[in-house]
């Protein structure tokens, strides 16, 4: 008996990192999960590693496209018959630079990948969940959804925007059995961090290791967070006990955020 028996979840950016940990935690609790990712090869590898048979399905696609986001929700419903839990997890922000030299392209890409993908999947999910009279929507935000950091204004702005979206949507669907929350992790050394981190560090005038050290130093625990930290909270929010928690921006950051 799992906490999520019979539930169906969809996780964007679910083949690796935080999304993968959430998908695995949901499967352990009895849910069926559709994981999305850009690369069919990485998707196939994730399915093999997760070894969960029919309980996991991979859907290839780049969530910076609205069509992909909407098709992903449709595919989840077609595959498993319903959608109980959406985790809008994908996101990142390459090409870091101070605002004075940030390009339109870098800002737009981060906003699309982080914010617009969250909006597109959330909108589609609410339209599925409303007639069901139940649902859980989680956006993977960030400690940067609450505080600023130099040279990553695109990431900071996109994550703040997600938090505002979450708070508003929570008010709209609060009486419909649907909760909408943001999880705000501290720095975790995921594949996306490994890809974007060195550029961000350079724009901040430090080494990649220096950036990781800075994140750790800003926390109370003086170390980075781990993907399972986020997955454990996601399970709670998805479970029946999460019914009374909505519009929350939950810090999972080792004591970094001031609020």
């Amino acid at each position, binding site marked *: 008996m799992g906490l999520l028996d019979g539930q169906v979840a969809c996780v964007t950016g679910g083949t690796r990192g935080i999304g993968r940990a959430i998908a695995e935690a949901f499967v352990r609790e009895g849910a069926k999960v559709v994981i999305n990712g850009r690369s069919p090869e990485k998707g196939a590898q994730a399915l093999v590693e997760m070894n969960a048979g029919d309980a996991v399905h991979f859907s290839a696609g780049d969530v910076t496209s609205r069509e992909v986001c909407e098709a992903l929700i449709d595919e989840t419903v077609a595959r498993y018959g319903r959608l109980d839990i959406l985790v809008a997890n994908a996101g990142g922000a390459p090409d870091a630079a101070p605002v004075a030299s940030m390009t339109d392209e870098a800002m737009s890409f981060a906003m699309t990948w982080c914010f617009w993908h969250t909006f597109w999947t959330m909108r589609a999910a609410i339209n599925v969940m409303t007639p069901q009279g139940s649902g859980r929507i989680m956006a993977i935000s960030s400690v940067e959804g609450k505080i600023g950091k130099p040279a990553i204004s695109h990431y900071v702005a996109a994550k703040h925007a997600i938090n505002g979206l979450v708070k508003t949507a929570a008010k709209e669907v609060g009486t419909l059995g649907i909760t909408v929350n943001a999880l705000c992790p501290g720095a975790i050394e995921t594949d996306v961090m490994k890809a974007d981190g060195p550029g961000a560090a350079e724009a901040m005038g430090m080494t990649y290791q220096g950036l990781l050290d800075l994140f750790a130093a800003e926390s*109370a625990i003086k170390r980075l967070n781990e993907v399972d930290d986020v997955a454990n909270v996601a399970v*709670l929010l998805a479970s029946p006990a999460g019914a009374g928690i909505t519009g929350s921006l939950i810090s999972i950051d*080792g004591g970094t955020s001031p609020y």
Partner: protein
Amino acid sequence: MGTLDGKVACITGGTRSIGRAMAEAFLAEGARVVVNGRDAAKGAVAVAEMNAGDKVAFFAGDASKQSTVEGLIDFTIGHFGQLDICCLNSGGVAMTAPVAQMTDEEWQLEVDWNLNHVFWGMRRALQHMIPRESGRIIVTSSVEGKLGKPGIPGYVATKHAVNGLVKAAAQEVGTLGITVNAILPGIIETDIVRSTGPDSAVAMGLAGYDELIGLFTAESAIKRPNRVEEVAAVAVLLASDAARNMTGCLFPVDGGTMPY
């Protein structure tokens, strides 16, 4: 196999409502628990109802008294040999009056019950946990730890203060395997709220208790009170190894009431 097997918890205000739900959830996950309350008779009833044999014990005393809070910590360590999870949960609206009419004595009651009790318990618990480099402190704060409401300034101010205490302590012990977090429930129809709610309603200029509950739920997104089980589930998570990297967190369980 529970997520809290082998752990020992103590809970101020643990015989009823939120604290009781925490105690039952901890027991279900394998912990041993000492619950505290003012009334020995209610304590005996609670222990009987929880039906957990020697895994649960009761410690009588008023949580607004330093001797009770420190006594609870010491009793727990003496009784079960250790303290892993300290839940500082007792508290409430001791006095309802606008700031302009609040007396010093009434103010002191609020400060002792909601703030000093948390400080006394946290300090004593940390002195035990720091050498062991392991522990969880979970404070029951409130949505009023982030928002203001007329007529209950003592409650609002002390819950804000508790949140500050949690954040400061979390920074102090963050590398010692000890986490310090607050849970911020929205309105829950606990026994305390049922008993103090009518007076609070009057102080807030409302017609009665139903209007008070209505005001709180209207401010939420879910338009209903929260439930003690929702708070207890978060407490279990924070108490477990799964939350070892969550600290200094003000965890809302308020149905979408708080603005931040």
